[in-house]
């Protein structure tokens, strides 16, 4: 029996089912990407989000299409959770012309401006100030939009984290900082480089609420983010949410992750957010087992279609490398 998660009481069925589908979309999509990589169809490297899906899904379920996110090198999950088209995402990861960035970005740089995904930056910590700027813009334009800023435990030790959280707090900006604490920054254990147990404790030092949440409990993430988004939208300022989570694969596609103790990996596999949520939905009678499995089948089909689309798409013309350096060259 999977480890229990929070009760879903008060959350609409539609939201719950939608979150379940999104979790599966990310999982199946990345399994497919992993498979394509093994067949030498994905250039470069991959940083997979498998195991962390509940964080992106629980947060983004509180956002509208007008809200913004910033993402990281481990960004496929954020992208899909915010509403990306799977075909265009897959095509980008495969370096095709039909991808979101016309093959210029790849796995580490997917953006989807149409739904407010301001893009994945691959310099750790670099998007935190950008999220603050987007939130400032939301405020100056007198909108009620909010920004969710995703980053990892490693980024929390970069100077940008400090500068950005301070600035967001002093200006009471509509931003939710979401720290995905997956215990490792590449091979470095967070406890070896950080003297406190909870990164969320730092929030007090900036004058904002800090919340620690089980990042593999999508309902708990959803509820924490709901409070933070409401606070941001109503002018109450930023919140730091720390989601404790784990990626099942190594840091990147080339990392066998031998620095992780087997019992730790085993424990986190038991905490896998998807079976936990599925069991909850069935236990509470929100979905029947067959319905849950039907959703999975539909997701697998959509993911297969995205792979077909990407593989059938052309690569860019080589000379396109010269385009889009500037909006207007002179």
């Amino acid at each position, binding site marked *: 029996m999977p480890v229990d998660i929070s009760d879903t009481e008060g959350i609409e069925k539609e939201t719950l089912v939608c979150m379940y589908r999104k979790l599966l979309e990310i999982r199946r999509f990345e399994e497919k990407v992993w498979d394509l990589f093994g067949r030498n169809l994905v250039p470069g490297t991959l940083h997979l989000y498998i195991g962390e899906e509940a964080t992106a899904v629980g947060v983004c379920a509180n956002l509208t299409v007008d809200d913004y996110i910033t993402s990281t090198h481990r960004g496929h999950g954020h992208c899909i959770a915010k509403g990306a088209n799977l075909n265009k995402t897959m095509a980008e990861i495969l370096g095709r012309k039909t991808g979101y960035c016309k093959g210029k970005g790849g796995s580490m740089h997917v953006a989807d401006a149409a739904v407010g995904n301001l893009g994945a*930056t691959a310099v750790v910590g670099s998007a935190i100030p950008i999220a603050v*700027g987007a939130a400032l*813009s939301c405020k100056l334009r007198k909108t009620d939009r909010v920004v969710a800023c995703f980053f990892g435990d490693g980024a929390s030790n970069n100077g940008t984290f400090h500068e950005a959280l301070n600035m967001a707090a002093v200006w009471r900006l509509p931003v939710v900082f979401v720290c995905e604490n997956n215990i490792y920054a590449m091979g470095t254990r967070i406890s070896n480089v950080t003297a406190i147990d909870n990164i969320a404790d730092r929030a007090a030092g900036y004058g904002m609420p800090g919340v620690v949440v089980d990042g593999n409990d999508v309902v708990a993430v959803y509820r924490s983010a709901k409070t933070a988004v409401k606070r941001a939208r109503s002018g109450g300022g930023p919140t730091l949410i720390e989601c404790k989570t784990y990626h099942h694969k190594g840091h990147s596609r080339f990392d066998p992750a031998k620095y992780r103790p087997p019992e730790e990996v085993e424990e986190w596999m038991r905490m896998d957010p998807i079976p936990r949520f599925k069991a909850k939905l069935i236990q509470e009678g929100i979905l029947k087992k067959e319905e849950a499995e039907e959703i999975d089948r539909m997701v697998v089909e959509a993911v297969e279609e995205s792979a077909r689309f990407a593989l059938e798409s052309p690569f860019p013309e080589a000379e396109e490398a010269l385009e889009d350096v*500037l*909006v207007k060259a002179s």
Partner: protein
Amino acid sequence: MSRRVETVMRKLTYVEALNEALREEMKRDERVFLIGEDIGPFWDGAFKVTKGLAREFGTERVRDTPISESCIVGAAVGAAMTGMRPIAEIMFGDLLTLAMDQIANQAAKIHYMFGGQLKVPVVIRSPFGAGNSIAAHHSQSLEAWFMHTPGLKVAVPSTAYDAKGLLKTAIRDDDPIMFFEHKICYTTKSSVPDGEYLIPFGEADMKREGDDVTIFATFWMVHQSLKAAEKLSRRGIEVEIIDPRTLVPLDKNAIVESVRKTGRLLIVEEDCKTCGVGAEIAAIVAEEAFDFIESPIKRIAEPDTPIPFSPVLENFVIPDEKAIVKGVEDLLKA
């Protein structure tokens, strides 16, 4: 290449001209806002470029920040990506190092790496230049770093007239702009028309016409070259001074055309000689006007040291009028 319009109405300092440009653009477009350290009502900017603007437009649009250069630029980038037209001030050009990731990896690359989906219409203003005995952390000229980074446009005005017209253009441009100012130029005056005008990027200005030697110079070195030119003129030597006004885009044609006419090129620059802007200019001329060069291209530049404090030391490393006169003489002898 354009010549200045001679509809002189009044003399303004470089600082006053920049201030006017900011005021006019803030009035014209409510998306324009300012963000930086001490630019607001308590200090009016370290060099007073933002004087009075917080009182006129309010502190929501003229935002004093914490001392957080990376976040100042990053926040400006994020605001630019989402519909605003921010102008960030970094108090000294030397401090751009603290924001280098946001400038070189984010602002410069966002449009490209996201396949043109997002624009970053941000202006990052910052002053360069030595001459005030404020030593190694407040005196550098680092424009070559940014000229070397694809995705940025780079402005380097030398006069009040150029500063105003270029800044207004920069604010309306959809690309990220590094708008560099010069601390010694700040107090210089030039004629600025009363009415609105814009100066396009990529159009050099011939600051002086002559047939004997071409001088390529920016910022304060334009003024030093003009003084040297007057001296040389009394001895019958007429130099032509090309001020590119923007380094990206660069008016290569103006430089090449002038060298084709004079056959001689002297590059005067305040940044370090090695891999400085002048190295690029020399390479362009070698590629595109080699057959017209009558004597080897000459560079006068900062001799690859940090900027020292004591006036004796500082004066030694920054090119001056005398060095320029000698440079021209050497070229004509060669």
